[in-house]
């Protein structure tokens, strides 16, 4: 580790913290339907869309209606995306004349993009036409992100409202989020990226004769527009196979810094939206603090492990101070690679600027553990906050047990129904992550896809189902996942991880909204101080630790020991 590396990490933390209040304030105004500086330009567009779709802006929805609207919209998106891929050969904007996408792959990719996962079993530049990239994948980068944010708003309203029957209007939240929040930021960020070198064109790939006389076919396309929303919406699906390590997706240290800020910006700002809506920004900052503690612990571990390098090479006459550079880019080095890998898995982004498969064992365990904990550390847009609030409910329940009082949070009594639903939402994740992994490592169609032998092969399978269930989308990418077995089981895992968590969460929102506010008394546990932060961090780590430690022991932990013992596979 170097001082310069830590300076860059510190710069990132400062910039992110500075973004929280302004962006949080702006988003609060947008979602409360107040006027913003963009309203004169966007209000006519917004009302026009409502009229065309038959949506009444002022009409609010019960949580069940909200959930059905979300599911109907997601299903319609799934069908269109599947169709576009199957028909790409006869549709326009296909300059490389690519064939239709195979059914199992089209299924996997459609689930992947509507669930905000962006797991990619395919090599984009040689599989997807420009039309699919734009009218299919970019669209879902926007709407799956907006859907996540809308769902978080429903839960926030559950805490903020008293004796209410409704949690908002899904369609209105979706449209406002897309056009007032996501698109303006993407236009500015996308153009910044073009300035730095990210291509934005619709031409065919460029064939060149290199300086040495070799041939090179340079893949290009409308990259910057997708890149911006890919990061901001914590989608993570790359235009190219190498994702954000590709020099066309992420050409400089400045685009790298911007991309990392985009990933966390909305997740961090939502803590402030939460604070403002429940009437105390301090409550938001307490949640922010829980996330920040877990984030810094992850960065420090990953950075230290990568800087220490691969001990199996220690006897060679190499410059070992450079750390583990396998699968990393020179312009990012160790610090920016470690930082990016932590951020992308704390959030449900899954974009990568370093190949996670080639991280050192403990370095590779950090991204896995980040996803296993539920991607609640700033998290996926929306999903990070609602996942974190489920943990808060459980933590308050634990606190209530310790003092023998009915737990409450923000004046809402947490009763059997909320705690049960929160536990259900949390437990569905390990069931899918560990269950599918156990299946894949004992049957031949599962095992045959692993690229590495020994414990690292197990880690590849564990990472895949963890990433899919967590809707992350990054991978230990040596895995040959483009087979019917992997495409379909990973598709199922993505579906389970998204919707089987959302439905209990919305039930909590609806049930909370209906409750009265209990006045603060001397026995109320303060939820904006250090004790609260410590308690929530503890509950998250204990839940995650107990659930996942055995599987991590079989993968990265035993691999770390093997590496130190000089064993190769």
């Amino acid at each position, binding site marked *: 580790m170097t001082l310069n590396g830590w300076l860059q990490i510190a710069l990132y933390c400062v910039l992110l913290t500075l973004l929280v209040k302004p962006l949080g304030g702006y988003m609060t105004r947008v979602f409360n339907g107040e006027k913003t500086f963009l309203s004169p330009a966007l209000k006519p567009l917004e009302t026009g869309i409502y009229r065309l779709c038959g949506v009444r802006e002022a009409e609010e929805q019960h949580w069940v209606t909200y959930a059905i609207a979300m599911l109907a919209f997601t299903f319609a998106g799934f069908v269109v995306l599947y169709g576009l891929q199957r028909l790409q050969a006869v549709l326009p904007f296909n300059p490389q004349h690519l064939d239709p996408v195979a059914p199992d792959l089209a299924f996997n990719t459609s689930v992947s993009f509507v669930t905000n996962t962006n797991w990619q079993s395919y090599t984009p530049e040689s599989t997807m036409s420009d039309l699919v990239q734009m009218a299919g994948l970019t669209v879902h980068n926007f709407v799956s992100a907006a859907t996540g944010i809308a769902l978080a708003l429903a839960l926030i309203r559950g805490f903020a409202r008293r004796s209410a029957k409704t949690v908002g209007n899904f369609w209105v939240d979706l449209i406002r989020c897309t056009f007032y929040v996501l698109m303006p930021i993407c236009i500015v960020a996308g153009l910044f990226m073009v300035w730095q070198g990210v291509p934005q064109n619709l031409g065919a790939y460029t064939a*060149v004769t290199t300086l040495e006389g070799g041939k090179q076919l*340079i893949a290009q396309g409308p990259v910057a527009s997708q890149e911006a929303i890919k990061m901001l919406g914590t989608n993570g699906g790359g235009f190219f196979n190498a994702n954000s*390590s590709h020099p066309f997706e992420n050409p400089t240290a400045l685009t790298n810094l911007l991309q990392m800020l985009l990933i966390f910006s909305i997740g961090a700002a939502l803590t402030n939206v939460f604070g403002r809506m429940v009437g105390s920004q301090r409550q938001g900052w307490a949640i922010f603090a829980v996330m920040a503690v877990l984030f810094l612990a992850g960065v420090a571990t990953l950075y230290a492990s990568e800087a220490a390098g691969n001990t199996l090479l220690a006897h060679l006459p190499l410059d070992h101070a450079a750390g583990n550079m396998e699968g990393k880019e020179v312009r990012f080095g160790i610090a920016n690679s470690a930082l990016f890998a932590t951020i992308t898995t704390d959030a449900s982004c899954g974009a990568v600027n370093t190949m996670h498969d080639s991280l050192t064992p403990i370095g590779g365990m950090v991204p896995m553990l980040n996803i296993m904990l539920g991607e609640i550390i700033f998290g996926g847009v929306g999903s990070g906050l609602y996942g974190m609030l489920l943990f808060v409910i459980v933590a308050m329940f634990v606190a209530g047990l310790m003092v023998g009082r009915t737990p409450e949070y923000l004046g809402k009594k947490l009763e059997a129904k909320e705690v049960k639903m929160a536990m259900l939402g949390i437990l569905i994740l390990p069931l899918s992550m560990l269950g599918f992994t156990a299946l894949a490592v004992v049957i031949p169609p599962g095992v045959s896809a692993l690229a590495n032998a020994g414990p690292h092969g197990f880690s590849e399978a564990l990472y895949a189902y963890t990433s899919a269930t967590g809707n992350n989308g990054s991978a230990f990418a040596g895995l040959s996942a483009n087979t019917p077995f992997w495409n379909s089981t990973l598709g199922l895992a993505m579906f389970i991880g998204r919707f089987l968590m959302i439905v209990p969460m919305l039930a909590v929102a609806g049930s909370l909204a209906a409750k009265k506010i209990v006045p603060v008394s001397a026995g109320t546990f303060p939820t904006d101080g250090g004790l609260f932060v410590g308690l929530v961090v503890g509950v998250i780590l204990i839940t995650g630790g107990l659930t996942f430690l055995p599987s991590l022991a079989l993968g990265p932990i035993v691999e770390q020991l093997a590496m130190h013992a000089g064993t*190769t596979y």
Partner: protein
Amino acid sequence: MLQHIRPAIMMIVLMTILTGLAYPLAMTGIAQLIFPWQANGSLITRDGKVIGSALIGQNFTSEKYFHGRPSATTDTDPNDASKTIPAPYNADNSGGSNLGPTSKALVDRITADTNKLAAENPGTKVPMDLVTTSASGLDPDISPAAALFQVPRIAKARNLPPERVRALVEAHIQGRIAGFIGEPRVNVLALNMALDALPAT
């Protein structure tokens, strides 16, 4: 339930038009207008011919050129479409080696490459980035140490004084942005083009 069908279908159609077509096409238009060179892939021409992109690394194997990092990219085997063959710096199929730290293939490859390079420049520690594959397989850069490491070989192959080659490398080092953001690096293609342009002595 039924009242959701119309908004669901209309919303996905409108979103496809607005975020899937209008947004990327408008961005393409603006980008082409204000940053045309970058928007078209930062292509470099020499003698009227496009010879590559400033951002995409190329495969250099000749003694006379600075070498980039090892690249793990592959291509389809022309004899058997179900197999792949190594194809370094294939800009149509980016990717890394994805070898884990305890992989025998990784340790063997790095050991062989390190021993070869150590023999080329004895007494100097081999820079890590010269024996490790990049994440994209298209890394356009090497570290300053990796460029300086190759100076003796280039000077010999081109029959140039080493200090001239070293000065050229030093002129091509891009430092950290604002002194601390990113890592210092040397763009291999730019350096090799400058090498070709050096007047012979």
